[in-house]
Each structure stands twice: as structure tokens, then as C-alpha cells.
């Protein structure tokens, strides 16, 4: 059993597990941290961005990377089409992957790169909400990338000898050779057409060898963790999971107990921020801004926490007398996101689930849309410009501030200190996100709302689950670089966890010892077990092994092979069974043996003592039987009939099974 690590970013996992001749990919995430090194893609022409100076290493020297890099307040950015860090593809032949298991809609965005460009022929499993929401995220990404004028890709700066001469943080950019530009709409459709639906606690079967079970992870609609097991071994893969009570169905941990291996990823990215107090801070900042006539920009993902935000904010704004302030939700997939969230009741927490029995939609945002409090638009163009009223709250993508309509609002509102941008998504450092917009007059609030498990919860969970081995991304073994003194922000287990790094192959210490087999009634009825030890019954078995769908079955051996019609054996060939019918053990009682010989008509025997035991001499036949502790040797002249008789008497005097 081996684990291949195709991505080391703990919140953008992509791993491959080989187990019982099956190759299983666990998640297929796109690492978007690369976006931080690029200039934003403006929705409408931006004077400011085009006028940024070209970066030069020295005042007087021309750069060898041409116009690829731009300088914004001392920070260097790549000016090209955006690129995303894809999983490692050189570590193993990805066409051998049998199945890809997806945990949630955030961890599937690299699928087209794997399924369309590596010869992949397997199946993909995801829950229905994961597929639908994942499709929305991918479509949004493609739309954001494609609707702006095409930019030239930049390649010169990537050369290894040039990168190291560049200023930080570009110099430290990770895994640059794996950076790719976005896929197309066609790639998305082709990749997602390979997805099959999985339901919580469904037992999915892989070639009869493995059972794969998705379990609710409590993180977002349809999110899951995976248990991959054979009859005797169990591997648990925990991806983004939450123990908080928000809208998704709570986390199901019981079936993950006593795993042989536990792979843990997707822990909280902002463990020092409490989601509840962040929500409070979010609300008070919003209220202050609106009351001062400013606007609020919330860069966000089009699904997930925003459903909770809509619900909480509308209630808060009512109580703060801001009922008239409009909320705008702008995304190419805003309408599907809102519609789909209402039809996945069975994937939601019990209180939301029970609403459909009334029948009412699970989330209140249908009501907010109906009475005009929440307005949604595919983009800032068209209808939106007619209905746009300030002050307002705008929810739009992308949280990286490098693409999407958020870029436009940054250019529009950035110059005024009355406006506020509130960051809720934990996946990007907000200062890095803001860097290409500096200098900025707008207020920036950082209120990350990350519902995922923190380190304390994870350590406690591991203790409860009692896995034999724990495997984690390397970064979980030491305190975060930004908080070196917080040595509680690590995963600690006993025995210590095995860390993984990108492009590494970890052998997992699992020895398979047993497999299940079925014995047919027909064969079983021919067995006559012997009680060899008190309570232990033993029988030798010779059977025909049938292997079907990796399931083993033992049935009686076919009668005689030569009896098979139309398949005559050559007369000359001897057919013998190679295996003994039973085993004899222990020692021979010489007196009993002689008595039994007599019973079978062999009386002409002479017993002599020998150094190791006895020698029985059948004088008339010139036959000698040498008996020692644990062994008997019969020396016969050519009389086969006698030998067989002696053999049978001998066997009858020995214990056997």
C-alpha cells in the first residue's frame, strides 16, 4: 500500500492511494495560491493597471523578462493570463487511476487537467450537490477567465536561473512548472460527464476488491470524508470537515473508528479566528460603513458560507434599521447557486431538512429574493447597472481579487475611505490579495469565517478514532510560519504522524494477512474435522478456487479431468493430484502398530530397538520399517500391494487431519 502526494497544500489536496491492485485518487484540487503573483484581470479597462511601471532589476538595466513583470508599490506581479497550480503529473502514470473520490466542491477544481489530459479512463465519484456546486465554481472560473481580452502568457520569468534573481515573494513561488492556464467550458463538461453520484453511507464497490464509503463531513452541502476498506483493512481519508452547527448535515465519524491508516487534510486555515465572533465583527463593520454612506464589498465564493451570511445579515440589518439597504449577489452562477441550494434538503442539517415537510424552502434567501432584499445578477453588465443603488452590500467573486467582478468594485470603491471591503474567505491572505490595489483608501476588514475543524478538534478526533497510523501534510507537524510560538497549532498523535510532501511516495505499513473466502456447502459436507487441540477442529481441504469480481469461493474439485468429453488427454501422460489428502502428526505407538498389522494379516514381524526408536522387520517380504520420533520410513522391495497395506495400517495408527 502506497500513498502518492500530488499536492502538499493542505487545503488543496490531491493524493493517490494504491491498495490491493487498485489505484484511487483522493481529491483533485486546484491550488490557487499562484494567483497572488499575478496582476488582476479587470472587467472594464483600468487606466491604473495599464500604467503600472515595468519591473527592472536595476534603475538603468533592461530586464531580461521583457514586459512580463510589473511593479506596484515595490511589489512585483506577473502581467499575463492567470495560472493555477495543478497537481503533480509526473509521479505516476495517471491513466492507471481507477477511480477519483471527491470530498467537496472545493477539492475538485483540477479535474479537467487530470481527466482530459493524462489518458485517464476511470470513474469519478462525488455527491450530487458536490457535482452541481463544483460545476458552478468551474463555470464561474472559466467565465471570469474568458470574458476578458486574451492576454499573452508569460514564460520568460519562469526559467529557473531567472526566478532566483527576482524579488520576494515571486522568487519563492512554489511548483511553477505545474502552473497552467484555466481550462475551457468544453473541458469542464467532458470532465464532469465522467462523474457518478454517490450518497452518504453508500457502499461503492471497486472491482469487488474495495468498498468506498462517503460519510457526511459537515463542512458544506454534500461534502464528505471517505472510508476505503477491504474485508480486513481500513483507510480513512478526512478532507474539509466541520464540527460546527451550520447548514450542512453534521459530520459522521463513527464508521471511521479503528482505521489502519488515517489521512488528515483540510484543517482550519485561520485557527486563531473564531467564526462566531468574526460574524459579529462582520455585522458591526457593515453597519458602521452603511450608516456613513459607504458601500460594503464582500469578495466570496458563490456557494457555501454566503447562504449563512444572507440569513444572518438580513436578520441583523432588520434589527439595525438597514432593511432598505440592498444586497447584491453578482456571479455568472448566482441564479443556479440560489436555486440548487433549495433542492438539496436531504443533505442539510435537521432543522433545515424539516422545513420541506411544511413545505417551505430550507433557506430564507428565496424569500429575500421575492421581496427584493437580495438581488442577483450574472455580471455588472446589463440589468445590474439599471438597478444599482448605493449604499449597498455587494457579494461577488473572486476572493483572490485577481478575477471576477470584485476587481471592478475594487477599482470603483478603492479610492474612498467611506467604503469597506470585508474578507470572509480564509483561503487567501488578505494583505496579499490587496497588494496590487495599493495605495488603497478603502477600509479593509479581515473577518475570516472558516467552519472547518481546528487543530484541537482534530487532535481530539484522532484520539477518539484510534487509527494505527496517521498521515498528514508536512505543514501540520510544526507551528504556522506566521505564528511560530503557537505550538498548539500542530497535529500530534501517538505514534507520531507520518508527514507527506509534494511529489513524495509514502509506503504505508499495512500487511494484509487475511482475505474472505466462501466454502460451498457441497465441499464443506465432505470435510471431517479432527479435534487437534481442545476446541480446535482441523481439516485438510483440497478444492477448486473460483475468483469472481475479486471474491474467492472454494468448491469441490471436478471429478476426473479425463472424463471431460471432447478433451481427451494423451494416453501416455500421467495425471496425479499433487496434494496430500491429509496430514499425520505426532508419534507412532509401536505396540498399537504391531497389533494393527496383525489384524491385517501381517504377523510375521520382528521388532528391534534401535538408537532412535524401533525397527520392524517383515522377514518373509524383506521389508524394513524404521520408526523414530516423528518419522517412519518404509523400505520395500517391489511389492506395491504390501506397501499400500503397510501405509494404510501406519496411517490408521497416527493422529491426522
Amino acid at each position, binding site marked *: 500500500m502506497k500513498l502518492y502526494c500530488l499536492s502538499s497544500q493542505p487545503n488543496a489536496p490531491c493524493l493517490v492511494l494504491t491498495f490491493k491492485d487498485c489505484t484511487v485518487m483522493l481529491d483533485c484540487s486546484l491550488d490557487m495560491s499562484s494567483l497572488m503573483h499575478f496582476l488582476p484581470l479587470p472587467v472594464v479597462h483600468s487606466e491604473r493597471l495599464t500604467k503600472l511601471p515595468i519591473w527592472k532589476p536595476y534603475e538603468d538595466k533592461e530586464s531580461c523578462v521583457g514586459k512580463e513583470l510589473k511593479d506596484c508599490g515595490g511589489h512585483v506581479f506577473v502581467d499575463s493570463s492567470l495560472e493555477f497550480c495543478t497537481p503533480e503529473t509526473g509521479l505516476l502514470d495517471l491513466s492507471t487511476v481507477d477511480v477519483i473520490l471527491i470530498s467537496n466542491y472545493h477539492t475538485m477544481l483540477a479535474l479537467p487537467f487530470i481527466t482530459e489530459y493524462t489518458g485517464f479512463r476511470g470513474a469519478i465519484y462525488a455527491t450530487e450537490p458536490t457535482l452541481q456546486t463544483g460545476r458552478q465554481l468551474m463555470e464561474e472560473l472559466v467565465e471570469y477567465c474568458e470574458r476578458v481580452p486574451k492576454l499573452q502568457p508569460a514564460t520568460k520569468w519562469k526559467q529557473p536561473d531567472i526566478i532566483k534573481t527576482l524579488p520576494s515573494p515571486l522568487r519563492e513561488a512554489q511548483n511553477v512548472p505545474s502552473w497552467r492556464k484555466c481550462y475551457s467550458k468544453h473541458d469542464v463538461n467532458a470532465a464532469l460527464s465522467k462523474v457518478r453520484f454517490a450518497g452518504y453511507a453508500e457502499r461503492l464497490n471497486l472491482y469487488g476488491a474495495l468498498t468506498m*464509503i462517503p460519510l457526511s463531513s459537515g463542512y458544506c452541502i454534500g461534502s464528505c470524508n471517505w472510508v476505503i476498506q477491504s474485508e480486513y483493512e481500513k483507510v480513512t481519508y478526512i478532507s474539509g470537515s466541520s464540527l460546527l452547527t451550520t447548514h450542512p448535515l453534521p459530520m459522521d465519524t463513527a464508521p471511521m473508528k479503528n482505521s489502519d491508516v488515517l489521512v488528515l487534510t483540510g484543517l482550519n486555515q485561520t485557527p486563531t479566528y473564531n467564526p462566531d465572533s468574526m460574524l459579529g465583527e462582520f455585522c458591526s463593520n457593515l453597519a458602521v460603513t452603511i450608516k456613513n454612506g459607504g458601500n460594503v464589498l464582500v469578495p466570496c465564493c458563490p456557494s457555501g458560507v454566503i447562504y449563512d451570511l444572507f440569513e444572518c445579515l438580513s436578520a441583523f440589518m432588520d434589527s439595525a434599521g438597514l432593511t432598505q439597504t440592498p444586497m447584491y449577489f453578482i456571479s455568472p452562477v448566482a441564479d443556479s447557486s440560489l436555486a440548487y441550494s433549495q433542492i438539496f434538503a436531504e443533505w442539510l442539517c435537521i432543522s433545515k431538512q424539516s422545513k420541506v415537510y411544511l413545505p417551505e424552502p430550507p433557506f430564507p434567501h428565496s424569500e429575500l429574493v421575492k421581496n427584493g432584499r437580495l438581488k442577483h445578477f450574472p455580471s455588472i453588465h446589463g440589468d445590474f447597472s439599471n438597478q444599482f443603488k448605493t449604499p449597498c452590500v455587494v457579494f461577488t467573486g473572486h476572493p483572490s481579487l485577481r478575477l471576477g467582478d470584485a476587481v471592478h468594485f475594487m477599482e470603483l470603491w478603492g479610492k474612498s475611505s467611506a467604503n469597506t471591503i470585508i474578507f470572509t474567505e480564509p483561503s487567501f491572505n488578505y494583505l496579499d490579495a490587496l497588494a496590487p490595489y495599493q495605495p488603497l483608501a478603502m477600509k479593509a476588514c479581515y473577518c475570516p469565517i472558516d467552519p472547518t475543524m481546528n487543530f484541537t478538534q482534530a487532535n481530539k478526533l484522532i484520539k477518539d478514532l484510534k487509527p494505527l497510523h496517521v498521515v498528514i501534510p508536512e505543514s501540520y507537524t510544526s507551528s504556522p510560519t506566521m505564528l511560530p510560538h503557537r505550538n498548539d497549532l500542530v497535529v500530534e498523535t501517538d505514534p507520531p504522524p507520518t508527514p507527506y510532501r509534494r511529489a513524495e511516495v509514502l509506503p504505508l505499513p499495512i500487511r494484509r494477512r487475511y482475505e474472505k473466502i466462501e466454502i460451498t456447502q457441497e465441499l464443506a459436507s465432505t470435510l471431517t474435522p479432527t479435534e487437534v487441540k481442545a476446541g480446535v477442529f482441523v481439516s485438510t*481441504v483440497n478444492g477448486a478456487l473460483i*475468483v469472481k469480481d475479486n471474491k474467492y469461493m472454494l468448491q469441490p474439485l471436478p471429478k476426473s479431468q479425463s472424463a471431460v468429453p471432447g478433451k481427451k488427454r494423451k494416453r501416455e501422460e500421467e495425471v496425479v493430484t499433487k496434494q496430500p489428502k491429509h496430514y499425520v502428526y505426532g508419534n*507412532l505407538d509401536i505396540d498399537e502398530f504391531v497389533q494393527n498389522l496383525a489384524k491385517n494379516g501381517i504377523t510375521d514381524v520382528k521388532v528391534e530397538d534401535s538408537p532412535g526408536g524401533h525397527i520392524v522387520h517383515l522377514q518373509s517380504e524383506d521389508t524394513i520399517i524404521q520408526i523414530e520420533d516423528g*518419522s517412519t*520410513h518404509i523400505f520395500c522391495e517391489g511389492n506395491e500391494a504390501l506397501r499400500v497395506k503397510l501405509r494404510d495400517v501406519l496411517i490408521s495408527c497416527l493422529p491426522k487431519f
Partner: protein
Amino acid sequence: MAEIKVVPLDVGRSCILVSFGGKNIMLDCGMHMGYNDERRFPDFSYITRTGTLSEHLDCVIISHFHLDHCGALPYMSEMVGFDGPIYMTHPTKAICPILLEDYRKITVEKKGETNFFTSQMIKDCMKKVVVVNLHQTVQVDSELEIKAYYAGHVLGAALFRMKIGSQSVVYTGDYNMTPDRHLGSAWIDKCRPDLLITESTYATTIRDSKRCRERDFLKKVHECIEKGGKVLIPVFALGRAQELCILLETFWDRMNLKAPIYFSTGLTEKANHYYKLFITWTNQKIRETFVQRNMFEFRHIKPFDRAYSDNPGPMVVFATPGMLHGGLSLQLFKKWAPNEKNMVIMPGYCVAGTVGHKILNGQRKIELETRQIIDVKLSVQYMSFSAHADAKGIMQLIRQCEPKNVMLVHGEAKKMEFLKQKITQEFGIDCSMPANGETVSIPSQSNIAADISVNLLKRNAALAGLSSSLSTDPKKLCTLHGVLVMQDHGMKLIEPSQALKECNASEHEIRFTSTVSLPPVSMDALYKTLKQRFTGHTVQHTSDGSLVVDSVLIKTANESDEGTDVLVSWPYQDEELGSSLFSMLQSRFCKTEPQ
């Protein structure tokens, strides 16, 4: 070994008791719509004579929300008394209590009947419901697990598989194998159950294509309203009604028709709401387009008001309930029946005893409970829109799941008999169709489960010259030799040496050495002969001039001009080879001088 026992508690409604692996499961708990006395509920005394229902039953499974499948549930759980789990899907849990309440109102409040369950009982009963998602494996207890599959009969309808150890039973409830305007078709995996219990309502009808039936329906409706007649379509609030609404809605659009279409209120609007919230349970087309246009928001279909029933001119009215056994549909029927311009279209199966069943059988005078006699002059049309599997569909499901036995329930005996023959012929499996209350025992032989050491498996694989996966050539016989050790109810197959070790026993080694006198022959010649004869074995020349065939040793003891004395020596483990080799040498080389 263990048998599977099935007792249908009644025909005309679904309520089946299945017992296997030491568990008792009740499949559906339906009400008989044709009776108005205690006979409408199943007779649970069959179970309760040996104790309470809770003691006897491990769980109840409800396949879908039709009352002939769930109508007796509150009676059973609250009046007879059952506290165990009741399993059903989400939509069934949402819709079932509404239909129960609706039916209760008609029976108790309108007809003034007593000895019927109350609203509170329906609520208490629903508290015992455990929701099952499609394909989720639900562990009822440590042994019994159940799994639901899509059935496509009505919103939320499911097929159920129950499994205990290696034995399993599939119960279909009602299902449909052809996707319709709002639902998809039933699907099940190749789960090879020991028994498939399938409905066979349309056992012999191979229904003509869906499109023809739809055209026929639209033509009849159109003709009737052209003549100024009124069309009554008795339906259940959920299910067929929505499909027919979608059908009429698009037809009215296309033909630009003006005649009003009404839908009896209350239940219906709510019903459409359920369809909107449970879109994931409808067919692919509706699911893919619901963001742009929700198919369950109708433009031409308006809520019905009782006052409209006397309006002049044509109209189409969908009214509940579906078998004309009460409520608005019966009221409208009474009013419209005497006019031959009008038409009633029965879009589904009707249980014997109901007015629907009577008029479908051609009865032209109907006597109601009030002794009132209705003259049936209007045109009576039957359209089999009920989403049941037809004979072809049933065969298809059997092919999908490959059961070892089939049992038919629901339907007319003669037709079922025909289907039964067809199943036995085509699949070569047993098929039964039990009468009411008759116990059917299905013998089922199950294999014995054991553990096998991976080392033993791998060694056998290596011996057979196969790769580690063992599955290279399915036709080649792969023999397995091992030792079965039984201890503390556990069984494992291990290597002989390990078995001896575990039992603290050491093998008693037996060796045979026999002498045979051969005519002068070189070891090389002997080698060639043996190599030819024992192709399946390794024949080797050793350095000291002896021959080895597997573990059998052949050695020259005495060589002279007259002949060679050869020693053949083998361990007991290779007895068969040793003795046959020895006999071969004896018979082949000593033919001239027989012993």
C-alpha cells in the same frame, strides 16, 4: 440452510411479512380502499397472537406514499402498537402524512366513521419514521442492513434491498421501468438477491408506446371539450396528476385552447410545492432545466372552486381521490354522470369495490352507500397511466438484479400465472405467487464464510502460474490446498505448516523407499521417458546421477549386465505421484518378467 419466509397479509393492498436470518420485516402497511369496515386494515392478529408487534417486528419499510401502501401505518403503530423503526424516503415522509390526514378527514369528518386513527396518531406515527436516502446503506441493527433504489412510480418511491449476512431480499413496491414526463425509470444494481418480491399489476399488458397513449388521451379530452362536454379526471393529489398537468399545459399552449382546466385546491398547490423542493427526485430533463423554468409552475391550470361545477360550457377538472371512492371526484361524478356529453377518464388502476372499479367494469347503474342510484351515461375512458412496470419492465428488472427466486404480488391471478411461466422459462428460476395469508418458504443455500491467509492465496496463485490477482484466466482450473482451522465459531484456511504450528503439533514424516529391477537402461533414457510422461511435474537430473521428479527420488542401487536395480523414494506428501511413478516403472520396464 436458512430459508426465507414470506407471508402476504392481504391482497388488494400491500402488507407483506418477510422473515429470514432471524429477523422479521414488514414491507408496506397499506389500506384497502374498497372496504369501509375493519377489513380495510390488515389483520395483524397473524403476528400478534404470539406477542406484540414491537416484540415480533424488527422494522417496517414503506415503499411509497400511496395509501394502499402506507394507509394503515398509524393504525398499526398507534392503535395496534409498534415502537420500532419505520423506514421511508424523504419525499414519502413529507407527503404520506398529508394524504393520511386527507383520507382521515373524508372518512371521519364527512362519513362520521369511528374506530379510525386521529390526527395526533398520524403525527406520533411519523415521529417513528427514519429517513433513508437513495443508495445509503442503513444499518437497522448489527445484522440487518437496508438500501433504497429509485423506483420512479411516484415522487420518492423506492425499491428496497434487505440484507442479513450473505442472504438478501429485494422488495419493489410499485415501480416503473420507462421514464415519464416527470419521473425517471427504476434502477437497481446487480445485487443478486435470494428473492425478488415484485409487483405485477400489469403482468401481461405490454403497453403501447408512451407517446401513443399520450396522444390518445389528448385526443379524447380535446374531442369532449369541442362538443362542450366536461372532463373529469379523478387523480391522487400527487403523482400521475402532475404528469397529466404537464401534458395538458403544453397541449393547451400549442393548440391555443381556451377551455378552463381546474385542479381541486388545497392539496394540489401544496403538492406542486413538494415537487419543486424535491426536484432531485424527478427526471433528468426537469432537473436540468429547473433553474430557468420550473415545470411545476402551471399557467393554464387554475384552482377549482365548488361553485364552478355548475358552470355551463366545457372544462377539464382534476379531482381527488383517484378511485372515485369519496371526496370531490365522487361529487363531480354524481353531478356529471347523467350527461352523455361528459367524460370521465380513469388514469389508473382501481381497487375492487370502488366506484372507479365498477364503472370500469361497464356497470351503468351505481348504487351508493346512501342508497342513491346513479345512472352512468357519460363516456367512461380508461387510460393506463399508472406508472407500473409492464411485463417487459418486470423482465428487465429481473435481468438487472439477477435474483435466485422471484415472487409476484399484486395483480390478477390468470395474468400472473402467464408471467410466472415466462419468468421460469426465460431465466430458469423459481417463481411463486402466494395467495392471501399463505406462507411461502424459499429455500436458500448459503455458502460458509471463512478467512483465508493471504500467504496461502499468493502461494496458490504462484503455483498456478498466475499473477497476484489470481484472475488471469477464469477457465483454467485453480486448485487450492490448505487446512481449515475452526475455533470459537471462526474459520480460517491456512497453510498446513502454520496449522501444525498453531496446534503445537509436529508432522509425522513418512517416507517410502521401494526397489524395482529394470532391464539395462541408462539414467538419460529414463530421464527422457519420465519427462514425457510427467509433463505437469519438474523432472531433474542431479549432480550425483539420480533423478528427481518433484520430491520423488530415483537412484541406481545396483547396476549389472542383466539389469539395473533402481530405488524409488518418496515422502508421504507425494504419495500419489510416488506410487504412480513406481507402478509405471514396474509395468513399463518389467513387462517381460511379470511378478
